[in-house]
């Protein structure tokens, strides 16, 4: 019965601490997204503005977020019954938005971010021989450009 108690303890710990940290993280993300909202970003290969590009730079942002025990167990249960793995959805959304914010931080002196790409990978996969990942890494990379107003369009 001890191992069952440990299981329940880890489950409760994962739920309460995991939920608290997730809410805290989302709050921080929302605040920083408001601040960085003015830096425009898209995934087009070219800059279609009228201005001349005077500087460009490869920028990236990455983020690694670990699963909590509750999310892991919930995901395994949903794997049995099918449906949206809601515990992963929030995790991946957090990671993606955090990575974009970090990339924007790197590009704060630039006017526009183009050609942005997002990569996702799992870390620690199969480390427990059960095929479940324990953390995700989100990598966002793009080209940040600085433009000179009044000049004609340039190709990046």
């Amino acid at each position, binding site marked *: 019965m001890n191992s069952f108690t440990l299981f329940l303890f880890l489950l409760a710990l994962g739920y309460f601490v995991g939920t608290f940290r997730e809410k805290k993280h989302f709050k921080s993300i929302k605040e920083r*997204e408001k601040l960085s909202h003015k830096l*425009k970003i898209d995934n087009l290969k070219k800059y279609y503005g009228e201005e001349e590009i005077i500087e460009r730079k490869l920028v990236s942002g990455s983020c690694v977020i670990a699963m909590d025990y509750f999310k892991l167990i919930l995901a395994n249960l949903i794997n049995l019954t099918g449906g949206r793995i809601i515990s992963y959805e*929030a995790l*991946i*959304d957090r990671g993606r938005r955090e990575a974009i914010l970090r990339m924007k931080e790197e590009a704060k002196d630039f006017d526009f971010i183009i050609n942005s790409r997002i990569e996702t990978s799992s870390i620690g996969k199969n480390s427990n021989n059960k095929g479940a990942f324990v953390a995700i890494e989100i990598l966002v990379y793009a080209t940040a450009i600085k433009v000179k107003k009044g000049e004609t369009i340039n190709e990046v």
Partner: protein
Amino acid sequence: MKYSNVEPDFDDNPNISKRSPLKTFLLIIAGLLGSFLVFYTIIILLLNFFMPRLPEEYEVIVSNVLVSFFDEEDIDKEKTLFTEEILKELSDDDIKILVIKSEIINAMALPGNIIIVYSALYDKVSEDGLRFVIGHEIGHLVNNDNMKLLGRSSLRTIFSESLFDEPVSTIIDKSLYLVSLAFSRSDETNADIYSINLLKSKGFSTHGAYEFFNSVNDDKEDLSIYLSTHPHPKKRLKEIEKVEGN
């Protein structure tokens, strides 16, 4: 080409489900547990049907194993002879009865038409009470409850210990025990009713039932009564009163 840089709508994020993870977790657990218990109950019902239909040789094998747990010196021969006389008054079937020296108040029916009575019972009840208990055990034999119980116990062991490791095996074992209780209590009530009807048909007093249950009723009302394989003595008496009323 216009660039649209709208303010993000934080409260309407389509990437995250609105469902509560905890609620989802509890729903899945309840669903899985419910499905498992339904599946388990169906198997029990099938076992209840097939176990009594097993060839008698299997019952003899089981009874030989069970009786081998008692030594020859454990048997109270004098009380065994006395109880055999009571048994003859109630049933013409080939039933073997053994009285075991013990301070525990108990009696049981084993596969292979064997009734075991523990000697402490003789200090608690009169001949009427003993007759009711013997009738009750005959009821178990007639209803083949012992073989059904054997099937249920084996199934529980297979499900809990053979298929799962700790801690799941413990949880499964406790859950399945609760399911089994409903069946064993029903068997006990049916055996009580059988005994009352048997005593009445043979012209004996049913007073022994009241005597027996009053002697074993310790007015215990704690949680353990919900985990007992037998219904509470008060509840059993009520069932008996119903039968007698009819």
